[in-house]
C-alpha cells in the first residue's frame, strides 16, 4: 500500500501496462508533448517514445476510430478523450462501431479498447465543458462502463479494463485527480461489474459512483458521528454491467436508499438504479428511493450559479432527513 493521488494511480497503471504488454499504446490529444491536459500521461512520451504514446490532431471521431481499427488487429489502445464533452464528436465510432463489431460480425473480431475520459463540473468550465454523459454509454450493449471513485479503484479497474477484450469506457472526474488514498501495489485488479460497499450501515443506503461517492462517504461518516445514523455507502463503480446483487442486498438490509449522482437527474444513472431496486427489492422498501442529482440546466459559468446547480453534501443531508421523516417502522439502531 502506498498513499497517492488518483492522478498518480492512473499514471502508474498506464506506465505499468505499457511496460507489460507491447500491444498497449496510448493515443489522444496532447497526451505526449503537452504531457496531458490533466497531466495523467506526464513523462510517458519520454519514457516510451512516440510509437507508444501517440499525439493526435483534434479529430475525436478519427482517432477513436483509428484506435478501434488498431484493436481489431490485436493492439490494445488506451485512448484519452480530453474531457467527456468532446466524446460527442466520437459517438459514431464508439457506439456504431466499437460496440457492434464483435456481435455484428458473428464473434470473429474483439475490440480490446479503453477510452479514458474525465467528466464532471465544478471548475467553472460552463455548459459545454462540465457534462457527465456516461449514461449514454451505460445504455449501450457491447460497451462496458466503469467509474472509479478512489485511487485504489482507479488503479484496479484501469488494469482490468486494459486487459479486457471489449471496449471499456473508463470514466474519470476532473475533481478527483488530486484526491488521495491508499493504493495496493503489485498486479492489483478489480473485476468489472462489482460494486463496492465503502461503508457498512443499517439505517439507509446511499448509492453513488465517481466523485459523488466520495462526497457520500464523507456525509455518511459525518452523520454517523453527529446523529448516530448508520448509513451504508455503496459505490457501484461499474455502470455497465451493473452489480444488481450488491445494491439489492444493501437495500434489503437498510430498507431505504438514496442515489447520489452529479449528472442531471432525468434519464440519468440514478433512474436505472431506482428502477432496478424497486423491481428487485420492492417488498423491502420502507420509503421511495430518492435521487439527489444535478440541477437540470446547462451548467452555468458564474460561481454561485454553478454551485447551486451541482449536487451538494447539503442536498444529500436534506434527502436523508426527508427519508427519516417517512420512516414507517422501528429502526434497530
Amino acid at each position, binding site marked *: 500500500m502506498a498513499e497517492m493521488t488518483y492522478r498518480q494511480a492512473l499514471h502508474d497503471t498506464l506506465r505499468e501496462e505499457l511496460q507489460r504488454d507491447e500491444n498497449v499504446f496510448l493515443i489522444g490529444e496532447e497526451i505526449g508533448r503537452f504531457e496531458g491536459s490533466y497531466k495523467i500521461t506526464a513523462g510517458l512520451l519520454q519514457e516510451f517514445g512516440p510509437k507508444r504514446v501517440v499525439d493526435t490532431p483534434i*479529430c475525436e471521431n*478519427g482517432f477513436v*476510430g483509428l484506435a478501434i481499427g*488498431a484493436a*481489431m*488487429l490485436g493492439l490494445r489502445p488506451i485512448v484519452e478523450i480530453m474531457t467527456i464533452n468532446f466524446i460527442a464528436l466520437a459517438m459514431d465510432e464508439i457506439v456504431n462501431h466499437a460496440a457492434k463489431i464483435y456481435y455484428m460480425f458473428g464473434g*470473429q473480431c474483439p475490440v480490446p479498447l479503453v477510452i479514458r475520459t474525465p467528466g464532471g463540473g465544478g471548475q467553472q468550465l460552463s455548459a459545454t465543458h462540465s457534462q457527465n454523459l456516461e449514461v449514454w454509454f451505460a445504455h449501450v450493449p457491447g460497451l462496458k462502463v466503469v467509474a472509479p471513485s478512489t485511487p485504489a479503484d482507479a488503479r484496479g479497474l484501469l488494469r482490468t479494463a486494459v486487459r479486457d477484450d471489449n471496449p471499456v469506457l473508463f470514466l474519470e472526474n476532473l475533481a478527483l485527480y488530486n484526491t488521495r488514498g491508499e493504493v495496493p501495489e503489485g498486479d492489483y485488479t478489480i473485476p468489472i461489474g462489482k460494486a463496492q460497499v465503502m461503508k457498512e450501515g443499517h439505517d439507509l443506503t446511499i448509492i453513488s459512483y465517481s466523485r459523488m461517492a466520495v462526497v457520500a462517504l464523507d456525509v455518511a461518516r459525518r452523520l454517523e458521528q453527529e446523529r448516530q445514523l448508520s448509513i451504508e455507502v455503496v459505490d457501484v463503480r461499474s455502470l455497465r454491467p451493473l452489480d444488481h446483487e450488491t445494491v439489492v442486498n444493501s437495500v434489503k438490509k437498510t430498507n431505504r436508499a438514496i442515489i447520489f449522482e452529479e449528472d442531471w437527474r432525468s434519464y440519468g444513472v440514478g433512474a436505472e438504479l431506482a428502477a432496478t431496486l424497486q423491481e428487485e427489492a420492492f417488498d423491502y422498501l420502507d420509503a421511495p428511493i430518492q435521487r439527489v442529482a444535478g440541477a437540470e440546466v446547462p451548467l452555468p459559468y458564474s460561481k454561485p450559479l454553478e454551485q447551486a446547480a451541482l449536487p451538494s453534501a447539503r442536498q444529500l443531508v436534506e434527502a436523508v432527513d426527508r427519508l427519516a421523516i417517512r420512516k414507517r417502522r422501528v429502526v434497530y439502531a
Partner: protein
Amino acid sequence: METRQQRKAAAQGAGPGDPRSPASLLEGTDRETLLNYYYQMVLIRYFEEKAGEMYTRARIGGYCHLNLGEEATVVGFCAGLEADDYVYTNYREHGYAICRGISPAVVMAELFGKKTGCSRGRGGSMHLFDLKRRFMGGYGIVGGQLPLAVGAAFALAYRGAREIVACQMGDGTTNGGPFHESLNLAKLYRLPVVFLIVNNQYGMGTRVDQGSAVPDLYRKACAYDMRSERVDGTDLLAVLEAVRTAARIAREEREPSLIEAVSYRFRGHSVVDPDRYRPEDEVRRWRERDPILLYATRLKEAGLMDEATRQELETRAQQEVEEAVRFAEESEFPSVEELYDFVYAGEGGR
C-alpha cells in the same frame, strides 16, 4: 512540400470509350489469371442479379445494395492487393467479399441470415466479414470504415508488418468529416493504406456535383498532400494497375494514396429504390459501357478468350451462384438460444 497530386488522369480524361488501361498489363499477365478476372466479374454479376431476385422473393431482408455496373472496379481493386492485405468496405460489398475469397455460398447464406453466413447471420448484406480472409467488414454507416482502416494500417505500421490496408468507399462519403479526418491521419502518420473512392456518380439520389464542391474527387487529396489519381472504373486493368501501384507505394514507402474509380451503378441505390432521379439516357449510355463487355472485348481482341471459353466461364459462374442459393436455402437459421452470444468477447454471453 508541394502537392504531389497527379493531374495526369484528369488531363487524359476517363470519359467513355477511352481505353487507357495499359496493354502491357494484358501482355504481362498469364492467361489463366486474366480469365479468372473475367470469371470473377461475371460471378459478381450473376450473384448480384440473384441477390436482387432473392430480395424480391423475401429471402433477403433489410437493405441490399448491389455492385452491378461496378464489377471492373471491384475485381480490379481486389486483384491489385495481396492475399494477406486487409480490406475495409462500405455496405455495397458483396463483390469485394467474394473476390477476397469468401465463397459466394457463405455470402449468400449471410444475406439469408443463416448461421453458415460469413457473419453467422448477425450482419446481413451490409456487414459481411471474414477475419481469416482479412475481409474486415462491410460497414453500413457512411464513412465509418475509414477511421477503422486507418487504425488497421496503424497497427501494421506499429508492428512493422508488410501487409497493407485497402479501404473502399463511395463518392458521397467524401463529403463527411470521417473522410477528412482519416486522410489527414493516414498522411500525417504515413500509414500503409490505399483509399478507393468508387465514384458511381450518385450517393442515393445525389449526383456527385450536388454533394461535393469539388466533383473531381481525387483532387480532394490535395488537402492532405496525398498522392491521388482518377481511373476509369469500367476498365478492370486500369483499376488494377492503379491499385497495384498504390499498394506497392504503401508497402514500400509507407505512403497512403487515394484512387478515384469512375463507374456507374446499373440499378437503384438499393434493391427497393425505384431509381427515378437519374436521366434515362444517362443510364442507357452507361449501361452500354458495361465493364464486363468491355473486358470481354479486350480479351477477345487479344486472342485470350474465345466465345466457347466465355460461355464456359459464364455457365460455371451461374452454377456457382445457383449452388450458393441452394446452400443458403438449406442452411439453418441461428438458434434463438444464441441471441446473447457475442455481445461481449471472452465471456460467451452478456
